[in-house]
């Protein structure tokens, strides 16, 4: 059971890293951003490309993958997302879904449709009580905690973080102070996208790469955002780890129901706390 909890925390950590950007885009800009799944896939395929084709090690590859995602997210923010501020949510869904579809076809064109594996970059397990834990998964949990603390400090201590927190609550009032909120939202969009790319990097050794991987993770992340509350940073963290544990524990009892149980939890949350529109 301890190992199941440990696996759940790993999945929860990765879900948190990917979901935080989605939650901020939802909460701050009112935009449902399907292209987030593409950035996640770009992170995963870039680490594959630099490791398999160029022989670069995992850590440097991870840095390159995150850096590669930045111009993509910048272009998506500038030419798609920024034009959707204040528009109906339907336009955002259609436009960002189109970006995701274009990206998936581009991935198929470049790397093909077959699944691609990445091996565990650490390849060491450590003994704890009666069980063996892959060190790589421990590193993921540690990194997630560092990101959680780092983001918490960022939003509490920096002026950009405070502007975003204020903007999540009342966009008009922030703009009324003379603050160009769209500039700060763009920064946070790129930060959130970079984290999605990092999530793609971290998840690839414990999963396989395939062109539709962005779709798959996106649905789980939407569940995290809905359970945690749109734009609710603390809620996103709690929801990600909780749903990670739900997946792991359900998977241990009956494997095929692991992901379905996430949506059962989401449905339950929506029943007791409907989304305000």
């Amino acid at each position, binding site marked *: 059971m301890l190992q199941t909890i440990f696996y759940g925390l790993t999945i929860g950590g990765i879900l948190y890293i990917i979901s935080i950007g989605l939650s901020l885009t939802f909460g701050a800009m009112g935009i449902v951003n399907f292209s987030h799944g593409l950035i996640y896939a770009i992170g995963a395929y870039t680490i594959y490309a630099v490791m398999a084709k160029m022989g670069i090690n995992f850590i440097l590859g991870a840095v390159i993958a995150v850096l590669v995602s930045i111009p993509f997210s910048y272009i998506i923010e500038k030419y798609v997302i920024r034009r959707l501020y204040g528009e109906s949510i339907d336009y955002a869904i259609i436009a960002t879904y189109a970006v995701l579809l274009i990206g998936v076809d581009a991935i198929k064109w470049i790397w093909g449709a077959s699944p691609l594996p990445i091996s565990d970059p650490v390849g060491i397990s450590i003994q704890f009580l009666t069980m063996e834990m892959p060190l790589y998964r421990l590193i993921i949990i540690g990194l997630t905690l560092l990101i959680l603390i780092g983001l918490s400090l960022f939003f509490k201590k920096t*002026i950009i973080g*405070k*502007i975003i*927190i*204020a903007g*999540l*609550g*009342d966009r*008009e*009032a*922030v*703009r*009324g*102070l*003379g*603050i*160009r*909120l769209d500039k700060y939202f763009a920064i946070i969009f790129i930060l959130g996208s970079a984290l999605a790319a990092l999530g793609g990097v971290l998840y690839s050794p414990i999963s396989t790469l395939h062109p539709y991987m962005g779709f798959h993770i996106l649905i789980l992340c939407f569940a995290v955002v809905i359970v945690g509350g749109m734009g609710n940073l603390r809620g996103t963290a709690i929801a990600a780890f909780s749903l990670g544990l739900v997946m792991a524990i359900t998977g241990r009892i009956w494997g095929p129901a692991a992901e379905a149980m996430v949506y059962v939890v989401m449905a339950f949350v929506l029943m007791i706390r409907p989304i305000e529109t």
Partner: protein
Amino acid sequence: MLLGKGRDGVILTVENLEVHYGRAKVLHNIAFKMDEGELVTIVGRNGSGKTTLLKTLGGFLKPSAGSILFRGQRIDGLGPENVALKGIRYVFQDKRVFGELTVKENIELAAYPIKENLEKAVQKVLSVYPRLEKFLHSKAKGLSGGERQILLIGRVLIGQPQLLLIDEPTEGLAAKIISEITAILLSMKGQFSMIVVEQNLATVARLADKIHIMKEGVMFKEITDPEMIRQPSQYENDL
């Protein structure tokens, strides 16, 4: 002429202003002038267009026709960020503080875009209402309605405001707090030009240099006679 002043001491000129919400026209041919240092109140029933007018002046709504001149320069079409940086500051109704931030952080955000020193900004807000000092490090969502309103008014005084747009400052507050806020607004009178949307005619009578009565999106009546302004019974039937 003073540097930066509009012609003849006029700070704001609104001409033939029209605003639509979708296809519905909500402001019709609004026109008025406002002098430097003047306190103008806008009164009218709910839905008469008071807040729409104030939001249009603040850059939150784009007019479909007409012009707004601030110190002789057109500002209609500018976004609220640019309007604010010109010195026009907006106090929203409903006491909209940034609840997840502390009182001091609320002040910090107001000081940031105009590069005002934070401590100086805090002192400016405390000079309006010294009792806020004990709440500086508390989340603003814990403040009472009156304290929130005073924080909002103090926040717009940071930097060099020229024109304050204040929407329903006494709405939903207890009589004691209303009189405190009225006293604060009176103490600011003459230092800044102010447009105050207000439903409480007793407050209007104490504050106003000029009253505009709005009805169904038009400027129905203007009252400039100080004697008449002090007697709400003279114009309450016009609302």
